[in-house]
């Protein structure tokens, strides 16, 4: 928050400057279909413009167009694209090659796939130097180490000789940024630079970009995450369907948006403020409708984990303890949230709770009876009581099966298997309607559905056997904010209607806080904190929880 106030003081200076990058009426089309429909924006030295939008908005295309990598089959037209006096509206490929890496740096998301895994980190960072004829091989190697050091990578000389997969996620992303700023470009374009990163690492990466900004680099950041934007951006442009719907200083746009779309986007963000309400509002301006919850029966835990441990033996004969003495209870009708970063063991815990993974020690009880210790044959008929939905629903469907078959298959394994094919079909249709789809989706191939629709099918399948517990493993992490809101609302509606309990796993604190009644915080396989949602969030006791909460790029909302 202090970052934005400090910059307000400089706003007057920046206004005087000529913008570093000026784009007027940019239009991009692919094969006749227009994806970017005439947008205009500027980027100034020492300031960050965030271009925000959901998938399909055209934000990535815009970013790529700024470095001439729009892609094959594209047509780019504009009234003006000028970088510091240089005309970028139609340079030759050779001209582009001189600009890329030198005048404009580009940062992609997820360094794991954005860096060449077979080459050393030092070589990757030194590559822009080599391409633009900078120094000698030896001096380039030294500069690469210096760059690693400047982005805060410890032991830079050692790390430079390693390969990207040997570094942790955060260090990798820093190395990626280092390679983008190697030649001190005037403009840095970052396309979703913090996606797929843990919250604590996100904060570090944003700080790094802020440092570059303070040195005078102009930054254009593409993101779908408004809270990340709040931390770094000075200006925000909201893109939807190739058009800019809203454009202004960050605190204005986020605190008091003028456009309904922006407002809806902001409202759809789950957080502590949205607890107990539905995220999608029926009409603009109205208050969010509250949920009508069923009472939670605290006398009867439906799912109980007792001192679970899971140890894996690696190929090098080293034991890795992925889950370490984890215990929790899930009561009827409630949502227990498990929050943790990558490597915390939360997904393995889910697998053990489902009895798809056998624990090394400890046990899981279902309705107070043995569950994980049962022999598979006795456990199978009980599996209808517990269902699961995953982050990537498409991978959980047999690629050859249409939606109808997927659901009927689940119905047949449930508490009340349908007696005939027509009865099965009827119930499948009803299930689809319950999750917001329809009869027309029965014969659809899941591959052809959108991400949100696929997740709805997964929910329908999970509901079909009429379970009492559903384990949700990062169910909304791959969805756009507005779709995420719809799916979360669907889950809460179903809970209110059917009384089903959720074991809800996520790395997103806002989602967890919105959904959960009680929370378990995991780190490195251990439970570091647990308790009622409000308790954990407002009065965290463990230092890790505290760090997690402060790293969260919070939106300053009234």
């Amino acid at each position: 928050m202090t970052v934005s106030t400090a910059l307000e003081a400089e706003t007057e200076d920046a206004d005087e400057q000529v913008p570093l990058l000026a784009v007027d009426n940019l239009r991009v089309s692919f094969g006749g279909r227009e994806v970017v429909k005439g947008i205009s924006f500027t980027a100034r030295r020492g300031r960050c413009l965030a271009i925000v939008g959901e998938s399909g908005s055209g934000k990535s295309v815009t970013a790529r167009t700024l470095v001439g990598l729009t892609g094959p089959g594209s047509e780019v037209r504009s009234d003006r694209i000028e970088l510091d006096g240089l005309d970028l509206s139609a340079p030759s490929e050779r001209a582009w090659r001189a600009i890329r890496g030198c005048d404009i740096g580009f940062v992609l998301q997820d360094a794991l796939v954005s860096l060449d895994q077979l080459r050393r980190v030092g070589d990757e960072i030194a590559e822009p130097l080599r391409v633009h004829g900078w120094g000698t091989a030896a001096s380039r190697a030294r500069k690469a180490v210096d760059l690693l050091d400047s982005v805060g990578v410890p032991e830079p000389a050692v790390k430079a000789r390693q390969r990207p997969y040997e570094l942790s996620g955060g260090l990798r992303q820093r190395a990626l940024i280092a390679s983008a700023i190697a030649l001190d470009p005037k403009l840095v374009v970052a396309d979703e630079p913090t996606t797929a990163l843990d919250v604590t690492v996100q904060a570090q990466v944003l700080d790094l970009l802020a440092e570059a900004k303070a040195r005078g680099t102009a930054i254009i950041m593409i993101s779908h995450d408004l809270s990340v934007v709040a931390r770094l951006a000075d200006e925000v442009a909201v893109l939807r369907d190739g058009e800019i719907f809203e454009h202004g200083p960050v605190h204005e746009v986020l605190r008091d948006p003028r456009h309904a779309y922006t407002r809806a986007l902001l409202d759809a963000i789950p957080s502590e403020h949205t607890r107990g309400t539905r995220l999608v509002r029926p009409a603009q301006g109205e208050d969010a409708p509250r949920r009508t919850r069923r009472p939670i029966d605290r006398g009867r835990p439906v799912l109980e984990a007792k001192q679970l441990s899971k140890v894996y033996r690696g190929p090098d004969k080293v034991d890795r303890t992925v889950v370490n003495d984890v215990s929790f209870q899930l009561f009827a009708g409630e949502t227990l949230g498990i929050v943790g970063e990558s490597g915390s063991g939360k997904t393995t815990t889910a697998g053990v709770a489902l009895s798809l993974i056998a624990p090394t020690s400890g046990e899981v009880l279902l309705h107070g009876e043995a569950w994980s210790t049962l022999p598979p044959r006795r456990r199978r008929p009980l599996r209808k009581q517990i269902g699961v939905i995953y982050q990537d629903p498409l991978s959980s469907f047999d690629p050859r099966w249409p939606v109808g078959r997927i659901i009927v298959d689940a119905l047949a394994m449930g508490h009340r298997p349908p007696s005939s094919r027509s009865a099965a079909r009827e119930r499948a249709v009803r299930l689809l309607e319950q999750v917001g789809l329809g009869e027309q989706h029965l014969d659809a191939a899941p591959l052809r559905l959108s991400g949100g629709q696929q997740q709805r099918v997964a929910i329908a399948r999970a509901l079909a056997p009429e379970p009492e517990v559903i384990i949700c493993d990062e169910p909304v992490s791959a969805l756009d904010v507005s779709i995420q809101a719809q799916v979360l609302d669907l889950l809460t509606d179903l809970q209110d209607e059917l009384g089903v309990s959720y074991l809800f796993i996520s790395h997103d604190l806002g989602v967890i806080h919105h959904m959960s009644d009680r929370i378990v915080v995991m780190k490195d396989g251990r439970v570091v904190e647990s308790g009622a949602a409000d308790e954990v969030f407002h009065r965290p006791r463990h230092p890790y929880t505290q760090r997690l909460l402060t790293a969260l790029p919070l939106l300053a909302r009234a």
Partner: protein
Amino acid sequence: MTALSLAPAAVRLRVRPATALSLLIVALLVVAVLAPAVLTSRSPNAIDLQHTLLSPSLSHPFGTDDAGRDLYTRVVYGARESFGIGLGATALAMAIAVLLGFTAGLARGIVDTVLTRILEVAFAFPVLLLALLLIAIRGPSLATEIVAVGIGSAPGYARMVRGQVLHVRQARYIQSSVALGHTWWAVIRQHLFPNAMRPLVAMLTLGVGQSIVWASGLAFLGLGVAPPSPEWGALLDAGRVSITTSPWLEIMPGLVIVLATLALTALGRTLQHRLEGAAR
């Protein structure tokens, strides 16, 4: 590419010209194997010393050989052996491969290790040399050729099957099926087997093409089924001598082999791309 739509609107296939051509060629081959009389009225061994070494013409599309036999007819009848060996050997290879590959992929542990080692050893024998070894031991015959090529190509397929089984086995949808409460057997039957075998269908067509090349190779060396069998490789071998004087004797059978293999390969690749696109 232009799209040809065959069949009524209810069943529409978008077929590229190349694929249509390949299908046609393979269809002709199948007819040649099953009912050669449909394609030619002559007999493959009908000697006609009045019309030896004629170059291709309307009545003799491929010309005649040194004994006056119509080359086209010989090629048609030769399909039985060449294509037949190809089909038989590939079928045998696939049967072995599925058995070994599935066992290794599903069982894992020590069974998998042992089977993989066995496959490694088997892999060290090139198909052609294994065939030669078997022929040296048992003498040349149709059965020996089919068994030899079949056993020789099996390890390659078995490796692929095993790889597919291992890959599909860790798929999320397998997990989901287990989580629903299906028995292991139901999961294998409904999900694992169909999805693991899918990409291998393309391999089959490629394999038949390869087997034809190998079988013809053996005949070319004079080690195929005994003459005067019109097996394609034998025709190539016979045609070598007169290549400068009567080149059609060498070129025509060779062209047929090339076309057959090409058609099968193209079909295989198309199937591969189609299936890869539908699955993930």
